[in-house]
């Protein structure tokens, strides 16, 4: 792991046209290069280059891949991954035949859906009859007839009646016909043609509706089973073609990736030119790879990242795999500038400390850990399972947060809200409840004091990291004059010293010392001269500057705003860390409240139940709050000190790259 973003180099290569495919394949297998368009050549040279022309356009390939993926998902099949062997075995693509194959499969699925539709309609019709029959409205809406036909065949009669819709029991005599009253005229019409004679058997008449309803229920059951069967059939029709679909996906995906890579290429009559960013530690490997793929018939040139404007260099952070959940937090905020400090390890430590202070409980932390591990295991077992409320990411995070919370619990002697274990530092719950505690921490104010000190450490760490970044970026002006630079840090230190002295005196007197006034004046002078110095620097560089009048106004305004910002900003940043104490106190208070509630019924079972529910509630609500507040403190109080987020993420193209679509 590097403390800073990964060092990059830009490769520009020329290979023979005949070696192009092999080079592309090798680069895809390696998957460490982010391609860029060649646009730095002089115009007359650029005009001699032609751009890439596709055999099958990338958009067509992307659409086809998405189509195969849709079908794979429809068959509950996982989307495959490409590997080096697939790249090696890459075959030419016949887009038309692929399309035809997919169309055929899609058509066969559609025919199953059409069958399902017919079954569903039959089921709906039967369900309507059942509904009227069972909710006592049979006489209003149903038309039951019991009788026989005196001419024509019974099967013909039945076929004609089925066109109208209803339940027809023709495998016994007298026949039963149960239809909707709204269709009565049509039914009568048909029956008259077949000489229907109504039965005079009162029992048959009485039982007709019940018998027909039973038949309708059987039809509904049959339809349900058939629908499920057809649904499975659709799935198995895809699964039968799984091998072909997966092979097709691989071919399409490989061609799509090649098209993507080659879209960055430029061509002369016999050669191919391409360029891209590669991590510096991979540059030798890449050079060897291109030499080997082109059998040495290539020219490679390297450009160091330092020779390119910093904002154009892609950024990659190299944090160990274990830090991935926290790297994602960093990426959600933004990408650091090239060459700056990798915020991930600092975020990891800061986040976990904050969470541990806010949610300090050995038992509840253990539950978080168990949930995280169980979730991980379940997702690993079902890789196609979509993320639920407890997502994959949350599970990875819980594996860290659980032990952090447990460590907090050990420090403060808390386990499921009880003081079951001796505190390594001080008994948090006892302090919150106002019980006498021996040691340095006696009341809630002491806890607030700890979190403020913790905040100061975090803010100073942020400022320190910013200074390191500024030195690396050679931005010395900002290093000295910026509100997050040395002057800001010095003013903050003076403020802390002053506030500490005031608090130490019992809020009675302000502290005084020989260094305070000169240091404060020196800092304020630095803030005041920021604009003039910047003006002078621009003048020396020969860049355009505003007039003197504007300089005076800017100096006065900026001094006022900057001083205000430094004091109010850093003060609010520091006080913001009191939320850490707040959440910790809320956690202890809630658990104490549940503890008291549990004692009320005087019944062991109720006691256990209340404590159980209380713990669940606290784990969910407090865990969520602590997680969000820790994130907020990192983003607003810590990152704003040193993390600009102006970088561009490094996105190499390889066989396992994320989906590349225009």
């Amino acid at each position, binding site marked *: 792991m590097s403390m800073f973003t990964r060092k990059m180099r830009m490769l520009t290569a020329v290979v023979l046209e005949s070696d192009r495919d092999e080079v592309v394949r090798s680069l895809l297998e390696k998957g460490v290069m982010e391609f860029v368009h060649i646009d730095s050549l002089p115009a007359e040279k650029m005009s001699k280059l032609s751009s890439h022309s596709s055999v099958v356009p990338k958009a067509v390939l992307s659409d086809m891949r998405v*189509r195969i993926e849709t079908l794979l998902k429809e068959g509950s099949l996982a989307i495959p991954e490409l590997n080096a062997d697939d790249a090696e075995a890459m075959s030419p693509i016949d887009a038309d035949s692929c399309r035809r194959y997919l169309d055929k499969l899609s058509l066969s699925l559609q025919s199953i859906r059409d069958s399902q539709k017919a079954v569903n309609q039959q089921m709906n019709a039967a369900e309507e009859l059942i509904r009227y029959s069972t909710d006592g409205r049979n006489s209003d809406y149903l038309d039951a007839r019991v009788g026989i036909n005196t001419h024509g065949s019974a099967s013909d009669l039945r076929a004609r009646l089925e066109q109208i819709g209803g339940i027809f029991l023709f495998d016994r005599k007298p026949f039963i016909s149960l239809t909707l009253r709204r269709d009565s005229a049509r039914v009568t019409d048909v029956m008259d043609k077949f000489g229907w004679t109504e039965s005079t058997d009162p029992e048959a008449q009485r039982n007709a509706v019940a018998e027909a309803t039973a038949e309708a229920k059987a039809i509904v059951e049959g339809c349900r089973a058939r629908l499920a069967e057809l649904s499975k059939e659709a799935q198995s029709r895809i699964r039968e073609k799984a091998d072909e679909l997966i092979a097709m996906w691989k071919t399409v995906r490989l061609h799509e990736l090649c098209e993507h890579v080659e879209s960055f290429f430029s061509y002369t009559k016999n050669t191919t030119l391409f360029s891209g960013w590669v991590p510096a530690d991979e540059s030798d490997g890449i050079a060897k790879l291109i030499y080997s793929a082109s059998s040495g018939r290539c020219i490679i040139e390297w450009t160091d990242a330092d020779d390119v404007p910093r904002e154009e260099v892609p950024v990659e952070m190299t944090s160990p795999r274990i830090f991935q959940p926290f790297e994602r937090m960093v990426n959600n905020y933004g990408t650091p500038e090239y060459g700056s400090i990798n915020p991930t390890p600092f975020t990891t430590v800061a986040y976990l400390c904050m969470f541990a202070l806010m949610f300090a409980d050995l038992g509840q932390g253990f539950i978080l850990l168990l949930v995280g591990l169980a979730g991980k295991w379940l997702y690993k077992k079902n890789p196609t399972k979509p993320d639920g409320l407890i997502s994959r990411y949350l599970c990875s995070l819980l594996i860290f947060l659980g032990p952090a919370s447990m460590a907090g619990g050990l420090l403060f002697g808390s386990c499921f809200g009880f003081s079951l274990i001796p505190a390594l530092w001080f008994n948090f719950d006892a302090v919150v409840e106002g019980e006498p505690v021996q040691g340095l921490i006696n009341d809630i104010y002491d806890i607030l004091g700890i979190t403020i000190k913790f905040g100061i450490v975090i803010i100073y760490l942020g400022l320190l990291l910013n200074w390191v970044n500024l030195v690396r970026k050679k931005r010395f002006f900002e290093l000295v004059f910026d509100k997050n630079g040395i002057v800001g840090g010095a003013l903050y230190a003076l403020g802390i010293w002053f506030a500490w002295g005031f608090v130490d005196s019992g809020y009675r007197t302000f502290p005084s010392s020989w260094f305070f006034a000169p240091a404060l004046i020196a800092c304020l002078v630095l803030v005041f001269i920021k604009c003039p110095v910047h003006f002078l620097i621009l003048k020396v560089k020969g860049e355009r500057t505003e007039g003197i009048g504007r300089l005076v106004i800017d100096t006065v305004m900026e001094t006022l705003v900057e001083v205000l910002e430094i004091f109010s900003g850093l003060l609010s940043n520091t006080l913001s860390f009191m939320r850490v104490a707040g959440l910790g106190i809320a956690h202890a208070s809630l658990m104490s409240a549940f503890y008291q509630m549990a004692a009320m019924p005087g019944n062991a079972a109720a006691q256990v139940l209340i404590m159980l529910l209380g713990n669940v509630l606290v784990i969910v609500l407090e865990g969520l709050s602590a997680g969000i507040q820790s994130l907020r403190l990192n983003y607003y109080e810590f990152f704003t000190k040193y993390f600009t987020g102006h970088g561009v993420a490094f996105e190499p193209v390889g066989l396992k790259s994320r989906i590349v679509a225009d």
Partner: protein
Amino acid sequence: MSRVSDYAFVNAKLRARIGMMHDRSLLDEMIKAPSLTEAAAKLDGTRHALLAEVYRSTGDLQQVELAILEEEIAAYREIERYLPDIPSRFISVLLEKVEGDNIKNAIRLWYSDAVRHHAISYRSSYIYKKRIVHGIDYDKVINASSYKEMAAAFRDTPYEDVLARFSSESLASTGLFPLEIELDHTWFRHLEEGIRDLSGSDRRIAEKIYSVDVDLKNILMIVRYSYSYHLRPEGLRHVMIPMGYIAGEARKTGALDAEDPMAILRSIVQRHYPQISEEIARIRRTADDLTTIDENNREIVLIEEYLSERRKKEYTRILAGNPFTIGVVLSYFFLRTTEDASIRAILSGKYYQWSEDKIREALGL
């Protein structure tokens, strides 16, 4: 209770939902899908995943449409619960629109069976039969053997009076159009009353949205029914929504009695809605030649597109404004129903094997 406490929760909830609504890429992917099965499968993993499941288990697009309607009604009901009394009643008025459409569908089925003597068979299953706002016995509507029996299903509802104005004979001769127009007008009257009951900024927002809506719909009515269908003044007066600025001006100027109503209203429309003045100017009142009808239809589509764009802009503006008003609720329903309608249209387009372009055209994309 303050406006903040009235709307804080619903505002946060709906904004989160709006944030999770899908961008155009879902619709694009669905349009690109070569078959209905593949288009429906795109809904997996989205907030419409249930629809994909319904289609997968029944293969029945109408069943999917019923599921969309059920979700829509559930959404209205949910939001109603989160709001205080008066705004909640307004949401109920909005839900009456859904009820009105459901009633129309049920009456159409009855009409098909009882008047046109076409068996409706399983089709009644696709009618939403539970209570939406008022207690209507939809089974009674569908199964009624006479108009009187059908109208009785609406007893003690606001639709009772509307149904009482028609008869089996009148519907047999004119079709359902006048009845449906009356049902629409009933809803608009309720909407007007609902807006009047709202207070302060809620009323201003609702008035602004619906007055423009009604005006543009009235303009479209005049263009469509007077120019394309040559409806007589009495008929035209009947179809016009009796609210809004344009309807008022039409009454005042007697435009609907004129041979060419738009000639009288043109300057008023141009003053109030200059963005559609070109379309209005291009509409011609000539013989029934197909070219003219076709050209007029094109202008109508442009006016509809303008209406849709204007709505979108208005709702976007509301979302950027004061969060503690009914505006965020109206915006949410607009975005939601627009998305639902688009999904419904795409799936139908796929069912009828329309081309991508035709579906896009139908959606105004």
